[in-house]
């Protein structure tokens, strides 16, 4: 694992030294990357605070469902969301149409604000869950005491909620900032041009258009520095994982009973729900009509994607399970760090490294699909470990001694105790791996020749040739496939699993 990542980085580093230094376009890319990540994180967190506050103190039908849906963007393919956002906010979209009837000019989605809009779409749910977790961790007694003392509204916010937010918000901000730094697919589809190019996108352009490996390597090195720095801060500041466990726990609240408070909460929950759900509905609505007569390449691409997702899932499990075992039995401090490396190395950087490493020996395009699967697996690895390790630790702590006293050390314990008991977590991690790989539009763009495409890449190509109807239909298919594989694997893990 470490050899792979470091090998890729080394390949990049060796190339980078032959580079000529930063030119004006590179500086612009760096500036844009930082600006869009800052704005995206800022808006996501600022919006998340009132939404999380409303969710924390209101009980209503569908609340659990809404909170569960907040987890969905994690496995939602970027290209699908982007297409949905274009359908709503694009030049020919719903918002523009509504403005048109009022005699106003249409809105434009391409550029900085489009990139930020898409990032907020993806990260508002994550931010909301992180902030909501903070609210849920405030002990119920605190609210009871506040009710006794008649603390409500603004003073409630100042006395109880603000201190929690001050502790939590910097972490949430940096996590989202770090995620947006490595944004590629959003910038590829909604950005572009000298004014809206992220470093990740610049790596791709240096590669695809100029085939300037030295420049790609230099940019990769810069990107790596950025992500390691931001990722380090995020890990240090952020607590909790935001996977949403226990977030629908009921907590009795005595404050916020005024009509104004109710209206404000309803407004924020409503706006967030509409903002998150309408683009997806748009995809379903525009995708459904074209579903029957999709071009043949779409189905071929769908098969390719399923294949890549399956391979990626297998690769992920081959890496994650031995690492989990090593960490849980406390043999693996280093292993844990190696797992986190996946967070630091951006997919395009690893992809660039592998491309440079493969090229002297073979045609990298021939390895497009396996490399995509591998890089996808590495990207999911840190998340998979966060899912698997705590449970594995718990199993070893509770049942390790019984196993030892029965002479089950080693393989028998693994086979008869650890793996069977980890099944729900393995299913969840495998589901994430499959869904993320299914929807990934990243490394594949570096390697693919015109004859090969995964489904996301095929959608991107359809968009590029303005076949929007076919693109919408293919997006709908991708949406179904991504959520489908996740559901199947996650479900498979829970079936017949005893606690």
């Amino acid at each position, binding site marked *: 694992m470490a050899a792979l990542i470091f090998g890729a980085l080394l390949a990049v580093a060796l190339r980078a030294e032959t580079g000529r230094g930063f030119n004006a376009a590179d500086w612009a890319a760096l500036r844009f990357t930082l600006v869009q990540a800052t704005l995206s994180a800022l808006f996501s967190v600022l919006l998340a605070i009132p939404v999380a506050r409303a969710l924390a103190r209101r009980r209503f039908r569908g609340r659990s469902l809404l909170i569960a849906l907040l987890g969905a963007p994690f496995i939602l393919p970027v290209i699908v969301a982007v297409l949905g956002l274009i359908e709503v906010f694009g030049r020919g979209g719903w918002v523009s149409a509504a403005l048109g009837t009022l005699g106003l000019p249409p809105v434009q989605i391409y550029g900085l604000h489009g990139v930020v809009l898409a990032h907020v779409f993806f990260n508002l749910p994550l931010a909301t869950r992180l902030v909501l977790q903070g609210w849920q961790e405030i002990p119920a007694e605190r609210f009871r005491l506040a009710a006794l003392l008649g603390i409500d509204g603004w003073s409630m916010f100042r006395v109880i909620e603000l201190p929690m937010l001050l502790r939590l918000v910097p972490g949430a901000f940096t996590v989202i900032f770090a995620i947006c730094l490595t944004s590629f697919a959003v910038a590829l589809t909604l950005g572009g041009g000298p004014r809206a190019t992220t470093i990740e996108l610049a790596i791709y352009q240096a590669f695809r258009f100029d085939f300037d490996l030295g420049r790609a390597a230099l940019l990769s090195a810069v990107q790596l520095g950025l992500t390691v720095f931001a990722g380090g801060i995020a890990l240090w500041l952020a607590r909790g994982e935001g996977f949403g466990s226990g977030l629908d726990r009921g907590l009795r609240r005595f404050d916020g009973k005024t009509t104004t408070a109710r209206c404000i909460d309803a407004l924020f929950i409503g706006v967030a729900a509409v903002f998150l759900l309408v683009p997806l509905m748009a995809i379903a609505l525009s995708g459904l009509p074209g579903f029957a007569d999709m071009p043949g390449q779409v189905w071929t691409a769908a098969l390719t994607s399923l294949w890549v997702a399956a391979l990626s899932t297998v690769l992920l499990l081959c890496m994650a399970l031995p690492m989990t075992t090593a960490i849980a039995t406390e043999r693996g401090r280093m292993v844990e760090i190696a797992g986190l490396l996946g967070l630091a190395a951006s997919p395009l950087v690893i992809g660039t490294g592998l491309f440079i490493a493969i090229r002297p020996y073979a045609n990298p395009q021939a390895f497009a699909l396996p490399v995509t699967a591998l890089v996808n697996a590495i990207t999911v690895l840190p998340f998979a470990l966060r899912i698997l390790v705590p449970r594995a630790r718990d199993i070893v702590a509770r049942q390790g*001694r*019984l196993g*030892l006293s029965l*002479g089950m050390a080693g393989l*028998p314990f693994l086979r*008869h105790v650890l793996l069977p*008991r980890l099944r729900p977590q393995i299913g969840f991690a495998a589901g994430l791996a499959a869904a993320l790989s299914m929807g990934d539009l990243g490394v594949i763009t570096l390697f693919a020749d015109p004859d090969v495409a995964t489904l996301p890449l095929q959608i991107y190509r359809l968009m590029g040739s303005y076949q929007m109807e076919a693109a919408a239909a293919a997006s709908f298919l991708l949406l179904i496939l991504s959520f489908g594989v996740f559901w199947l694997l996650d479900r498979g893990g829970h079936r017949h*699993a*005893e*606690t």
Partner: protein
Amino acid sequence: MLKLESATIRNGSFTLTADLTVPDSTTIAVIGPSGAGKSTLIEGIAGFLPVTQGRITWDGTDITGHPPGSRPVAMLFQEDNLFPHLTLAQNVGLGLSPNLRLSQGDKTRVTAALERVGLAGMDTRKPGELSGGQRSRAALARVMLQDKPLLLLDEPFAALGPALRMEMLDLLAEIAGETGATLLMISHAPEDARRITTQAILVANGTAHALQPTADLLDDPPPVLRDYLGS
């Protein structure tokens, strides 16, 4: 015969010293105040805690460095004595083969062991479907099949009601009698100790003392034990 020869057992920053001999086929209670080191003694013998000085021998062989699975020891913990995802037959079968490769003969023995502890026909049940008493019985069935000469118990029935606890203790004594195993049992209840043990080890102030008759120790407890027993 088990011997602890000037053995120092370390449990974090706490240490317990023991210099004592345990003869075969004896039933022994481990008695002492809370925090005196009863569990440390049992877990040191089982191999879960390191012996930093001295040694532990079994029939003259030094077993100080042996892993828990290869010691002549079967053990019952306070809880979690069964794997919740395995059936009773599998849980009991682990006493015969740690990797669950069971021959037809093994399977017959598993069924017989379950019958012996009063769980006939429950082979395919899982621990979650059983009562606390039934779970204890299943664990005893496995101990029976493990057939180790030394049986260590860390208050395994503490969570059961008084009547059920007595029932389990009697079953335990019967099984130990049948296999000829030496029983080493931590107990907080003097009546438990009197019921099934003849000898006792007093653990107090970081020392495990040599064996003495249970009745003598409980009838005339030293001051450190008297405060604890509250009599």
